[in-house]
């Protein structure tokens, strides 16, 4: 569904991604882990065009949506086309980014109504269904500021799902949460994975990666250092850098040492 070929991304002098090749298939749950600054989030942001790549190719559903060479975008797709393709990618941010001036229900319905021109009734029915699935139906008329971080993130997931995306991108979805709120968000994500959603999850939750992930990608310094089945990866990381990284993780240490 997603194919990345030799992706490079620099911010000025700083090279953040250094030649990423990646294929992601339907219903995969790919967990991207690695130290901070390794380019994990940038990779996701390049996928849905929040950042433009410096060079490389991005295919989504077999369609070339970005092609750049030496910092110049070579493929001048109209903005509308880019928006359409990006709408196939749902994104969940570390800091939720809910719209504070809209109620929970409005947050979930606004994009389908505005972008997909869905009818209000249709969008609301689906939104209520989604809010029910993330367990927040009773909060539909609240403003986001009245919700806990975990609840806000679950609304953000519902909001992304409302666009009926084929792929969900999660950018450290639990990193801004209090520890006791992490579980409820991971639970929703797990359910989503079980329903067959294709997911790319940048995370520090090794337990989630091991249990729910179908593949783990370990990134360091802008490169994919290692990728494997989660069970194998966490039990027997092959590279020294992955071993060193897992060694610093509390709770993982006991199994890797």
């Amino acid at each position, binding site marked *: 569904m997603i194919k990345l070929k030799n992706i490079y991304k620099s911010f000025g002098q700083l090279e953040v991604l250094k030649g990423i090749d990646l294929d992601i298939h339907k219903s995969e749950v790919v967990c991207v882990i690695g130290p901070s600054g390794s380019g994990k989030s940038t990779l996701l942001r390049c996928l*849905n*065009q*929040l950042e433009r790549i410096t060079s490389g190719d991005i295919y989504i559903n077999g369609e070339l949506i970005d092609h750049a060479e030496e910092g110049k975008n070579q493929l001048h797709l109209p*903005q*509308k086309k880019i*928006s*359409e393709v*990006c*709408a196939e*990618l*749902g*994104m969940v*941010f570390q*800091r939720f*980014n*809910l*719209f*504070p*001036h809209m109620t929970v229900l409005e947050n979930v319905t*606004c*994009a389908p109504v*505005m*972008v*997909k021109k869905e009818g209000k009734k249709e969008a609301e029915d689906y939104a209520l269904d989604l809010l029910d699935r993330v367990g927040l139906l009773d909060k539909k008329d609240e*403003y*986001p*500021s009245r919700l806990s971080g975990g609840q806000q993130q679950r609304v953000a997931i519902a*909001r*992304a799902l409302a*666009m009926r995306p084929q792929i969900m991108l999660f950018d450290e979805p639990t990193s801004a949460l209090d520890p006791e709120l992490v579980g409820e968000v991971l639970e929703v994500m797990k359910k989503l994975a079980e329903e067959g959603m294709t997911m790319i999850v940048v995370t520090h939750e090794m337990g989630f990666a091991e249990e729910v992930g179908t593949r783990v990608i370990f990134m360091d310094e802008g490169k994919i250092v290692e990728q494997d089945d989660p069970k194998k990866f966490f039990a027997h990381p092959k590279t020294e850098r992955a071993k060193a990284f897992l060694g610093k993780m509390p709770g993982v240490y006991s199994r890797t040492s």
Partner: protein
Amino acid sequence: MLTSKQVIALLQGAGSTLQLTLLAIVFGIVLGLFLALGRISRNKIINTICWIYIWIFRGTPLLLQILVVYYALPQYGIMLDAFPSAIIALSLNSGAYLAETIRAAIQSIDKGQMEASKALGMSYYQAMFKVIIPQSYRRLIPPVGNEMIMLLKDSSLVSAIGMAELLRNAKVMANSSADAVFYVYAAVIYLFFTSLLTLMFQRLEKRYSIYE
């Protein structure tokens, strides 16, 4: 005591002042919004045009702008009455001031909001008008209130082109009756309006703070 004629003159003047202020703030906000979007725009030409506009209108006296609209434009074939001239000059001026206020308010909104909008497939203008700008309302209320109070008082400058607003009417009566008390009446009416505006904007601010 005041004669009924004098009361009517004062009230008519107050009415004109209020009319000028309300129209100028409405046009000023619309103009300011477009100028602000222009200043945020990555299009260098639009950006520069807006910058020059703001630079001129904030950098020259309002009185001069009023005089130019009323006395200089006719030389180029544009003849306007005192009232439309006054409205135009006041709107153009307040637009320049509001532009910078609105730009700052828009840019103070968390960048994540624009990113989330884009990630949901919204266009730049959908995101701007449905997500970003509505969030800036609350932050805009105090400075817009301030600007409106300034406008109310500065509208007295249009007496220079013979518009019969509050201060001018007071001055005419003070001169003809040789009694400066008319200035006190005018001051009381100005104070009444500015207090009303202050109160109104405090209310508005409270109403818009529900979600923060």
